[in-house]
């Protein structure tokens, strides 16, 4: 039995309307890799914020190495040896690596010494980093290294990692796990938050599972099957989406040799993109965040204009057309950012329905809005896609992530498009809603629409896609059939090996 490092007893935290954590107790041993498992909204984030001193618990106490532990703010937690790597990186784009590291330390050494120590630590743990580079220029994987190195420089006793692999390629995940195992062997405990069961079974010694703010179990994840863990986490039996064998139709969307500069100074420009999409086909595009996914979506939706003939919809050149014109022609899109891009946060669901449905649903007449038809359209979406909300008058920002995602995807599907482009359709959405959204996309494809899914979740792509490509630094790999494709091969595609033959030889 390991010596306990951190004990949590009866932690409770309520926010108006929700009980985020209800009487949660467990222990983390020294040097233990402890998983915190749960769906979005299960209370994982609130729990670690309490451990890191960002949130004060309403009830309950913590003890760290036998002493009472109640950090009032993160700096206290850091002084006591608790460090955290954030899910949404807590980095500053316009500052360099060394400055970013210094900002996360209590007593940083002089800048020159710090740069030297960053180099030493990053090499020791296999996480190469150049301290003088601007963080805005780094890839997602490198940014995570900055966060990890920032923690390691403070000799933490407990390292909290919040969904660290959501932005990494499978190969980068392997490197990260090696680092974490090395740390664990050196006596640093790790609290590993995730909802990816395979990772937890590969890495963790013990797992605590949260559901609806309560602890449902503490177990050894290696003694459970992924299915048992999933059922503990979700509380119900999940059915994977069904796909029918279906014939592919004609090519409906074609992009040829398209290069396009990003509209964002930290963005990735598209380089020589070519692909075609047939009716009834689901094309999955993988890639680590920041490799041109946003630009690809903007280019296809019409928010970024391209040379006219290089984007063709059903044989018609549409590169020069804006989003409304493309929507009228049958191409719709649902971007990644729900609040602020896909939906206007401070407008009601009815108004949001109007924003993308006006043309195809004929919701305006002579420039005047037909509110009755718009309201019906919104109610249809809510009913068909099981959006949990009191009604269409509710503001978009009041919906939970999963419900709003069902609404914005449903809104586009209800337009009966010929082509639908979605980016990260189930990001931050609970498992039940994610399964629902995937099924809705497959149903649309079954009815003969072409679907393009951009996602960083490989399991999702393997579940829905017929064919498969990966984005890497703005380049798209050749499209392959998804049948028989392994996660390793996909990883290589994401990592930039455009030609897949060496991987086959390696496997043989």
């Amino acid at each position: 039995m390991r010596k306990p490092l951190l004990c949590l007893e009866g932690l409770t935290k309520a926010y108006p309307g929700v009980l985020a954590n209800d009487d949660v107790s467990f222990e983390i041993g020294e040097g233990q890799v402890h998983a915190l498992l749960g769906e979005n909204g299960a209370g994982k984030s609130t729990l670690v914020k309490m451990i890191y001193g960002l949130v004060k618990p309403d009830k309950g106490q913590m003890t760290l190495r036998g002493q009472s532990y109640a950090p009032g703010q993160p700096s206290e937690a850091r002084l006591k040896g608790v460090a955290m790597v954030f899910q949404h990186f807590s980095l500053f784009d316009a500052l360099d690596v060394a400055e970013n590291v210094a900002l996360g330390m209590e007593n940083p050494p002089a800048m020159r010494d710090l740069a030297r120590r960053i180099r030493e630590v990053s090499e020791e743990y296999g996480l190469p980093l150049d301290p003088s580079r601007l963080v805005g220029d780094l890839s997602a994987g490198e940014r995570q290294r900055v966060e990890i190195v920032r923690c390691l420089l403070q000799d933490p006793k407990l390292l909290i990692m919040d969904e660290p692999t959501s932005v990494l390629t499978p190969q980068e995940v392997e490197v990260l796990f090696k680092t974490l195992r090395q740390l664990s062997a050196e006596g640093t405990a790790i609290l590993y938050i995730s909802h990816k069961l395979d990772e937890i079974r590969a890495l963790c010694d013990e797992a605590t599972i949260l559901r609806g703010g309560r602890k449902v179990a503490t177990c050894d994840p290696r003694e459970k099957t992924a299915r048992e863990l999933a059922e503990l986490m979700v509380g119900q039996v999940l059915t994977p989406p069904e796909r029918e064998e279906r014939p592919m139709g004609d090519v409906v969307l074609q992009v040829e040799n398209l290069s396009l500069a990003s509209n964002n100074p930290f963005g990735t420009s598209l380089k020589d993109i070519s692909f075609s999409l047939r009716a009834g086909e689901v094309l999955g595009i993988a890639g680590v965040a920041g490799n041109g996914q946003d630009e690809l979506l903007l280019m296809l939706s019409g928010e970024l204009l391209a040379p006219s003939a290089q984007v063709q919809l059903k044989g018609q050149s549409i590169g020069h057309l804006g989003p409304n014109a493309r929507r009228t022609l049958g191409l719709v899109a649902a971007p990644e950012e729900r609040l602020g891009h896909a939906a206007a946060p401070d407008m009601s669901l009815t108004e949001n329905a109007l924003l993308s449905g006006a043309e195809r649903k004929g919701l305006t007449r002579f420039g005047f809005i037909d509110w009755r038809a718009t309201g019906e359209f919104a109610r249809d979406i809510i009913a068909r896609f099981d959006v949990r909300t009191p009604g269409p008058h509710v503001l978009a920002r009041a919906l939970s992530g999963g419900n709003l995602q069902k609404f914005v995807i449903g809104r586009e599907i209800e337009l009966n498009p010929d082509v639908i482009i979605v980016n990260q359709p189930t990001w931050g959405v609970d498992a039940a809603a994610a399964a629902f959204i995937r099924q809705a996309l497959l149903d649309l494809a079954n009815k003969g629409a072409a679907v393009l899914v951009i996602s960083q979740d490989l399991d999702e792509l393997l579940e829905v896609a017929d064919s498969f490509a990966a984005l890497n630094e703005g380049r798209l790999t050749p499209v392959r059939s998804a049948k028989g494709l392994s996660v390793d091969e996909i990883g290589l595609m994401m990592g930039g090996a455009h030609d897949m033959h060496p991987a086959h030889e390696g496997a043989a």
Partner: protein
Amino acid sequence: MMIGSINIAVLLAALMVAATPILLAAIGELVVEKAGVLNLGVEGMMIMGACVGFIVAVNTGSPLMGFIGAALGGIALSLLFALLTQALMTNQVASGLALTLFGLGLSALLGQKYVGITPPRTPKLDLGPLSEIPFFGRALFSHDIMVYLTLALVAAVWWFLKYARAGMILRAVGENHDAAHALGYHVKRVRVLAIMFGGACAGLGGAYLSLIRVPQWTEGMTVGIGWIALALVVFASWRPWRAMAGAYLFGGIVVLQLNLQAAGVKIPVEYLSMSPYLITIAVLVFISSGKARGALNAPGSLNRPFHASN
């Protein structure tokens, strides 16, 4: 050295004096914006500084007390802005505009009885033999202490933002307030302090106008210098030395066009009077355009309200 009827040494000397108020206001606003706050009330804080500084100097007979009073006056007005935007979460643009209007009105009210009075004279700083140097002595070393303090302030701000840990925290807060909060920094505290610094600088800039440059109190005497200071900060890409260059350029053209007016050049006075504003903006736009990276220097959280979400 003379060009036509214009003495270059005197012109340079006048330029430094003309540039000082705008530079003071700009360097203060630069720090405020680096912390992620857009305070459009610079003009209002300047005129309050001009008015309060003048009143204090006349009543105490001491220009030094006048400048201290001006800084406090600017801070008082900036605290109103801080209360509105940081505590009550109002819109920064609207609050800043309101602050300018409020400052203009309040200063006119306070200064009513002081129109037409001459303030106590601020002495030139005695730099001994330096001021005896031909040409340079007259141009560079024959000023009051505020001119040199302002230059020192620019250097200090540059050093603070580049090398000091507190300066790094300030930049971090302005760059990404959510991340700064997650790391445990006090976003609002940093911002309120920055806003107060901006108020003090704007107040000093205003007092420099009413106590040294003009020197008199008249209603609305800042004539839009606060707005030019705001534009300077943006076009200087939030860099202190570039802001200084912009301020000196503006001051130089102000002085030059005054000289041209006096020399009776055949250009309508209206065009000459607008020239400093036009040329400064044009030059700075030219400098900051064409570089995608130039925009990157803009603080990422500028003008975004911060609300701790946990």
